[in-house]
């Protein structure tokens, strides 16, 4: 059992968005099953709430970074280039 705990608690931010959503779904499912003690449920719910906040922030702050590749290295790609 403690082993499972270790797997479940890597820092929330380390995971991909996809993994975070999957974990969120898993948590909701476990809570829904009703097999858990109140304490375990509370811990799980806390994790879920943290996850969903992290996902929200990630979505709100999502911006693509666009760079131009060249032999010399990467430079910022300015959309203004399009006007030329």
């Amino acid at each position, binding site marked *: 059992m403690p082993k499972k705990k270790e797997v479940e608690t890597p820092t929330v931010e380390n995971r*991909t*968005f*996809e993994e975070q*959503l999957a974990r*969120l*779904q898993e*948590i*909701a*499912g476990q*809570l*829904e099953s*009703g097999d*858990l003690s*109140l304490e375990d*449920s509370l811990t799980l*719910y806390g994790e*879920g*709430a943290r996850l*969903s906040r992290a*996902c*929200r922030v*990630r*979505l709100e*702050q*999502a*911006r*693509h*970074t*666009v*760079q*131009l*590749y*060249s032999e010399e290295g*990467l430079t910022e*790609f300015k*959309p203004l*280039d*399009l006007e*030329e």
Partner: protein
Amino acid sequence: MSRVYQVSELTAAIRGLLEGHFPFVWVRGQIFNLSCPSSGHIYFSLKDEDSSLAAVWFKGNQQDGESFDPLTGEVFEDGPRPSLAQRLREEGAGSAGGLEVVCAGRLGVYPPRGSYQLVVEIMQEAGKGRLQIEFEKLKAELAAKGYFDPQRKRPLPGGRGGPSRVAVITSPSGAAIHDFLRIAGSRGLSAQIRIYPTLVQGEGAPAMIATALEQASTDGWAEVIVLIRGGGSLEDLWAFNSREVSQAVFASRVPVLSGVGHEVDVTLTDMVADVRAATPSHAAQLLWPERRELAQRLDELELALSGAWRRQLLRCESLLTGQEKILRLLAPSARLERHAYELQTAEERLSRAIRARQEALLRGLDLAAAAFAPLGERLIRSRMDVVDKLDLRLAGLDPHLPLRRGYAFVKKADGGILRGSGGLVPGERLDLCLVDGQVPVVVIERD
């Protein structure tokens, strides 16, 4: 007849059918009715033995001279070759009429005349048929090498949120990258997009595109390579039919997503690529889901989470209430109370039962009595009848009754009743009994 069309409706429907079904065709035929007005467009008909097809070669699609092979990008060593358009214009209907050519282009409907025509993009003398033959040859060769095998197609990476490292091979100043970035802007999460700039048409394009592909593939940074180019004529897109680009796409260690030209344009590159997008915008759509969609998914999961938590709390609460109830039932005072109550009810039931039994017995008795009473009366009456009858009969037998009617009887001295004259002797004393008393008599004589 199911409905009546307006002319323009029907024409539009036919146009949709025709242009959708023949986005791009190769046609062989002889040139007739050639006309080269000053606009620079060339109008003619393509004919064979039985049929004729109207065709137009717009000025924008004509080349003044070809310095490289548009199929392979190979530069002609002996200098530019004069294009067929030039020859048609110069020689006119006189010598060019009847010339056998192969044309590549799209079928279009011209609504004002209700006619369809071939919009030519490339024309070659049929004798050579170079472009078509090369294209078909290369296609067959690549197909034989398994370049187009569906089994080797890799899926796009990245899962629900889309890929986070994307290499884009295109012209940095073209419409393609503009469209791609505009669509990408509202999709996916924070991805890194690295543009590998290249020419996308003209002499050096195939080699440059191939080099960029190799570079992006060997860098090992990108999860997916996107190869895009905006719409253009068949000639403009020809670099994407080249062997070099097809090979580079085939060799890529990273999945390649191609989006070349418009929806109807399908190049060899598109066929080799792991995934084909119809346009550059479509490529961005295929890579990433809309951010709104992700937000909605997150909303749903949040709702599921809070709902599950609320229900879990309710479950715990009802569990607690249940346990409390059980505890209360098991408490000693509650037990005494319960026993007292049980006792009381038992008593009540008992007395009720006794009362009920008594009542039932009494009711039975009453019934029996009621049944007996008339029976007794009847019995008594019938007995009395018998007595009455006996009385009457007895009365009839009373020996004194006839005396009232004047009869008399004679008693002997010994008290017995005289029943005949036998035995009587004279002088014997007898008593004559009348109704109101006895008179002594003496027998005087006998007959």
